[in-house]
């Protein structure tokens, strides 16, 4: 390999107890397109921020052009020829395109609108990007805003362009345009790092692929020498040959993955396509919750999933499989009453998402429990006690107190009972929950959500980040409540867990929903293929 444009050597970043990236070695050569892939939380964003000069590594060095680089700020990174297109665009909506490009690059004095516009036109001509310098950034759609971000990144001479999840929000046409631009940059000798979790991007434009799993690089090899099956397996479990991804190769014939034609596999939304032979017979229990023609949009307005419909029956675990970021969180939010679907309807008993009263309180009163995916952010109050955390979603029950007052004695008794029943390792009901280990925090969330025997349970990644014993405990709890007659929606990316628990499976991928199917009527290969977006 020629002298690398950028090389990371033993790069490590810790956040508190969590090691986001562990001694990463990675290099990219001029004219090379490197894919950096991994699940959400695998550490990709941390790597991006370190290269962009926005996060300082705790250990290790970054070499730019062979010399040790002090990337202490975005300005320093830019001065070294590193251009970054962030996933969450850092744009000021009230600025014009010209102002956006000028920000941080002009002196304190008068802005010359004509000169700024000319500069924008010059960059956009060279990159082959069409954008109006006078347009207000906030009025552009997501693809337009991305073009502005790219323009910003290219506004000086770049040796390395870093694209963080660039296609998640793009239509197939816009993605094709983006990749055409990447090809032009590659031809002119620019190194490109494409951070993504979409495999079609990898096989479409990349020369080499590095896989991150839980902050560790688990693979780094030419794209030509790998397969989607291996990459899915590496992303999910950190090793090849994971059962969940087995057999993908047979399903994915080579013509599905034509090189240099990334738009051949559109990432845009399409209606659900349920293979007739695989449609599962609904289980016997009564319908507890139903979705019809549901479309969900992400916060930025892009379509996360469209045409989703299924009925959740009592006494079943319905798994929603898929790599994170394909609409799972939007689905759980809508079903929990935190949002409304953008199209279609969700029903639970007498409640439906078209009503004024579609909110978490009403749904919880009707028997809904919600185990959120991000327990630290959405599941607990770290500074408050176990007792208070156990009351969090339940204090409004008549049994919780007398009139306006909460019955503290009773609440503490419940906390003691929960600590015993769920084997929470703690110094007592008064201990702040933030002091508990992650596993014990999750047990607390489980105790709170399950202790009133809910009719419907939304469990989002309930065993993610836990040790084996706690995982087994969580899964046992879900089985026990299924057998009691609860209807359970299990969101998981772990096919092992899904096969161990689920009665039926729906997959979400690239805006498409497939299923439900019963695990017995399908294969892990088929589900794995759906998860990969094929």
């Amino acid at each position, binding site marked *: 390999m020629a002298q690398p444009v950028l090389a990371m050597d033993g790069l490590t970043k810790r956040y508190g107890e969590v090691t986001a990236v562990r001694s990463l070695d990675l290099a990219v050569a001029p004219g090379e397109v490197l894919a950096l892939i991994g699940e959400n939380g695998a550490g990709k964003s941390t790597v991006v921020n370190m290269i962009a000069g926005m996060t300082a590594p705790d250990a290790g060095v970054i070499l730019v052009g062979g010399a040790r680089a002090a990337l202490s700020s975005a300005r320093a990174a830019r001065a070294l020829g590193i251009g970054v297109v962030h996933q969450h665009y850092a744009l*000021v909506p009230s600025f014009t395109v010209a102002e956006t490009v000028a920000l*941080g690059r002009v002196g*304190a004095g008068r802005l010359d609108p004509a000169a700024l516009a000319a500069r924008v036109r010059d960059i956009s001509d060279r990159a082959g990007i069409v954008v109006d310098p006078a347009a207000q950034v906030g009025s552009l759609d997501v693809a337009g805003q991305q073009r502005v971000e790219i323009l910003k990144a290219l506004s000086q001479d770049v040796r390395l362009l870093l694209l963080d999840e660039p296609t998640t929000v793009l239509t197939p046409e816009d993605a094709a345009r983006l990749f055409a631009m990447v090809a032009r940059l590659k031809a002119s000798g620019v190194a490109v790092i494409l951070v993504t979790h979409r495999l079609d991007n990898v096989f479409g434009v990349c020369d080499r692929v590095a896989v991150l799993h839980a902050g560790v690089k688990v693979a780094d090899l030419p794209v030509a020498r790998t397969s989607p099956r291996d990459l899915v397996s590496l992303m999910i479990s950190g090793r090849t040959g994971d059962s969940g991804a087995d057999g993908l190769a047979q399903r994915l014939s080579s013509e599905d993955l034509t090189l240099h034609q990334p738009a051949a596999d559109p990432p845009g939304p399409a209606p659900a396509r349920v293979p007739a032979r695989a449609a599962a017979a609904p289980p016997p229990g009564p319908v507890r919750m139903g979705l019809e023609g549901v479309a969900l949009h992400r916060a930025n307005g892009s379509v996360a999933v469209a045409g989703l419909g299924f009925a959740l029956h009592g006494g079943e675990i319905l798994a929603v499989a898929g790599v994170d970021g394909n609409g799972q969180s939007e689905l759980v939010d809508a079903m929990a009453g935190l949002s409304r679907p953008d199209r279609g309807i969700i029903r639970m008993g007498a409640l439906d998402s078209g009503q004024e009263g579609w909110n978490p309180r009403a749904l919880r009163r009707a028997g809904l429990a919600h185990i959120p995916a991000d327990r630290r952010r959405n599941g607990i109050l770290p500074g408050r006690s176990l007792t208070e955390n156990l009351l969090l979603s339940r204090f409004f029950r008549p049994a919780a107190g007398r009139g306006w007052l909460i019955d503290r004695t009773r609440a503490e008794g419940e906390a003691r009972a929960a600590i015993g029943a769920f084997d929470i390792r703690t110094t007592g009901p008064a201990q702040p929950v933030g002091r508990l280990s992650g596993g014990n925090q999750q047990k607390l969330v489980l105790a709170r959500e399950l202790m009133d025997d809910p009719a419907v349970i939304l469990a989002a990644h309930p065993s993610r980040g836990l040790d084996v014993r706690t995982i087994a405990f969580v899964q046992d709890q879900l089985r026990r409540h299924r057998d009691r007659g609860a209807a359970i929606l299990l969101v998981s990316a772990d096919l092992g867990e899904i096969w161990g628990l689920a009665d039926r499976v729906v997959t979400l991928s690239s805006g498409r929903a497939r299923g439900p199917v019963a695990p017995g009527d399908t294969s892990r290969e088929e589900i794995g293929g759906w998860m990969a977006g094929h």
Partner: protein
Amino acid sequence: MDGVLLVGLLASGVRFAMPILFAALGETVAQRAGVLNVGLEGIMLAGAFLAVLCAVATGSPWGGLAAAAAGGLAMGLLHGLMAVRMKVDQIIAGIALILLGLGLSGFGYRLAFGAGGVGQVPGFARLDIPGLSDIPVLGPILFGHHLLAYAGVTAAFGLAWVLPRSGLGLTLRAVGENPKAADAAGIDVDRVRMAAAAFGGAMAGIGGAYLSTAQLAGFVENMVAGRGFIAIACVVFARWNPVGALVAALLFGIADAAQIRLQSLYPGIPYQAFIILPFVLALAALAAAARSAHLPAALGRPYRRD
């Protein structure tokens, strides 16, 4: 109300508006950069006191003005230190400044001048603009003021140019709207905010100096009497626009001048009813403006990299 009375009312309205205007312009800049300083009241008090103290000591109102600006700058930096660097809640940091300014100015005044107070304070002389100040009606209203008043109006128009049309304004706005974008563009967000907080403090100090050495001549404990809060109301009412802040400050200044005249016109009505007039106006203005206000998106939010 006859013509002479009206001219007098408007002229003193302009004078009354100036302390509010300076504080409001400084706060406009600070808030556009995302720094909310509710402690203007305290800074203005400190400025009013320092202006008297140093005007007496140096024998010139300019010495007082410089001291007031420097003291305000220091208090603005203190606010920046708490709110920007230490990420303390900005409201609480601001309230600390109010109490600090109130205590320091009252205590310092007694310490410096004793119970008897100060005698003659060197104040700013009126600067009648030759020719223009003799124009009937408009002359006394617009062209018969202290030099500082012309400086305040000039500052309002100057800032109205700087914010939308200069690189400095671009930087300030980016920091207040989306600090992450500014950071990504290589701007040191906290440094820009510290500078904005310091500017806001210095302007509030000048506002205080105007009050004690131009509008009046002397210091009285708690003499700012709510003008710092009115200035914040002006910023919001003007939707963070400097010329708008000038208009709003004039409105409140005239209301203040009117309430004093109304007190003597209607001695039968308790004077407190008139004193609250500017505040009622502020409340009504804010209620009307709040509905359509687009405040700087990152106002009052400390920036932390994630």
